């Protein structure tokens, strides 16, 4: 039996609003691989996740998830969206947020006072969020909210986990905790695509990095891609990559940042 790669992009090109975000990307991601995605503002990182989610069609080329064209709402994919602020008065608990990940998409209603679902409770414990699962989410710290987001994405036992800047605005301890949670899931056999503005927290876990910049792209192990030579070629300008006290520091180019998410799903138009 032939096992399909987790993700296959073949000559994938995406143009949005008359601008080419990336062109002719061909890439195979094996099952269980941890792929970090880096790139400057507007490089199309979130759009890449939307393509993988089946929310955004490619302008050209092909994309396959587990050997099939991605369909909207696939249960095989877990999604950690970009952080957004919740109103502190929003009457929604962490437990409810994780519950959405389990069955929020199904029609009908749950009996209102039914005891909480077992997978939700298990997942809350796994991410260490059971202690604050009844607190309204708007009153939790960024790190606590991200744990709940990860529990929400993992509760359906996805084979592919897509994370959009889950480390944004977290302190280094929370960053490491979140990275380790995701890395553990990856070691259990799930494929991870992790959009980030900082490669350093991922250096121990990311097997490869995909760099999107100005319509061009590069993929490979971190030490191959994040070099002065590769980055200078990608950006078309001199870029210096330094290793300072075990950290990768990039001078002369912006690796981080994030393009604004379109308010209306373009795929629906």
């Amino acid at each position: 039996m032939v096992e399909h790669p987790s993700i296959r992009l073949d000559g994938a090109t995406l143009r949005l609003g008359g601008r080419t975000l990336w062109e002719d990307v061909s890439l195979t991601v094996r099952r269980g691989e941890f792929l970090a995605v880096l790139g400057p503002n507007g490089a199309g990182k979130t759009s890449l996740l939307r393509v993988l989610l089946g929310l955004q069609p490619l302008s050209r080329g092909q994309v396959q998830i587990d050997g099939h064209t991605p369909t909207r709402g696939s249960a095989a994919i877990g999604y950690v969206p970009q952080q957004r602020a919740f109103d502190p008065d929003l009457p929604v608990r962490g437990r409810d947020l994780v519950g959405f990940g389990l069955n929020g998409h199904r029609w009908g209603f749950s009996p209102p006072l039914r005891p909480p679902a077992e997978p939700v409770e298990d997942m809350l414990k796994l991410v260490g969020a059971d202690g604050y699962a009844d607190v309204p989410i708007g009153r939790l710290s960024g790190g606590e909210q991200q744990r709940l987001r990860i529990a929400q994405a993992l509760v359906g036992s996805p084979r592919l986990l897509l994370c959009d800047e889950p480390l944004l605005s977290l302190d280094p301890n929370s960053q490491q905790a979140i990275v380790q949670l995701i890395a553990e899931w990856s070691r259990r056999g799930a494929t991870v695509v992790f959009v980030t503005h900082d490669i350093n927290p991922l250096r121990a876990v990311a097997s490869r990095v995909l760099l999107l910049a100005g319509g061009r792209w590069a993929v490979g192990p971190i030490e191959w891609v994040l070099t002065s030579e590769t980055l200078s070629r990608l950006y078309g300008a001199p870029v210096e990559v330094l290793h300072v006290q075990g950290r990768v520091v990039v001078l002369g180019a912006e690796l981080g940042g994030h393009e604004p998410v379109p308010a209306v799903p373009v795929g629906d138009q």
Partner: protein
Amino acid sequence: MTSLWHYAFVQQAVQAGAITAILAGFVGPFVTARNMSFSVHGLAEVGFAGAAGAVLLGLPPAAGLLTASFSAALAIGALGVRLRERDIATGSVLAFGVGLGVLFLTLSPRYLTEAYAILFGSILAVSRQDVVRTAVVGVGALAALALVYRPLRFASIDPDVAEARGVPTRLLSIVFLLILALAVTEAVQVVGVLLILTLLIVPPGAAQRLTAHPGLIVAYSVLIALTSVLGGLVCAVYTSWPVSFFVSAFTFAAYLAARLVGPMLAGSPRVAAAAPVREDVEVTSTAAARPTRVHPGAH
């Protein structure tokens, strides 16, 4: 005094009022979760135009109300469901609706009585037929809400992930606007166009001060709406003051009380402390040796 309750008009008011309060209690939490107070007002005021138009044509105002707010819901849904755009779309439809309503009422011979009934409610004037219509609309709206309840909550609170999970968020926005139009039509009968928020915003607002449990919020919201409407009817029957006044007074009292005693006060201390970070997870690198490729791309 108790003999008043033997009159058909009082019994009909209680029946229609109870159905309306239950529907409003269920729909309200979604209105607050989706920040749709303005849409509620918009639907009610366009409903006002429809009711006024019906009066002018000699048709029952309720039919005009239902038709107009239902059409307005479709129009708002079609014009744009994005949060930012929704306010503008709602405002545009609303302003024109009220203008039309004023024209229709001015042209109508029974200007004052009808205007008063539509703007401030006329629950003590409902007929047997009105009760039947209220029941049919109420059951229909509740059934529709039950069908979309879970994905609608998902889409209202967490739209990005809901969309990724395949929830048809745009369709649900329109479906909810239609359910809301039905709830608004019913509530206008009880409290009138100008007091619509007293049934659709205040009870869920009070409920979510008392708890963050989704099931309990709905239960409290229904309970507060129902108690306020029935209590308002009782008081109105015995004092001859307007029902709308009493209903708004009761819901407001519930809101104040909930703010005072509820645990959901802004800035109140967190209930539980965060669990410690798990440090025992060991992470290994599985770096695959793949060649680096750089692809030139078009700009």
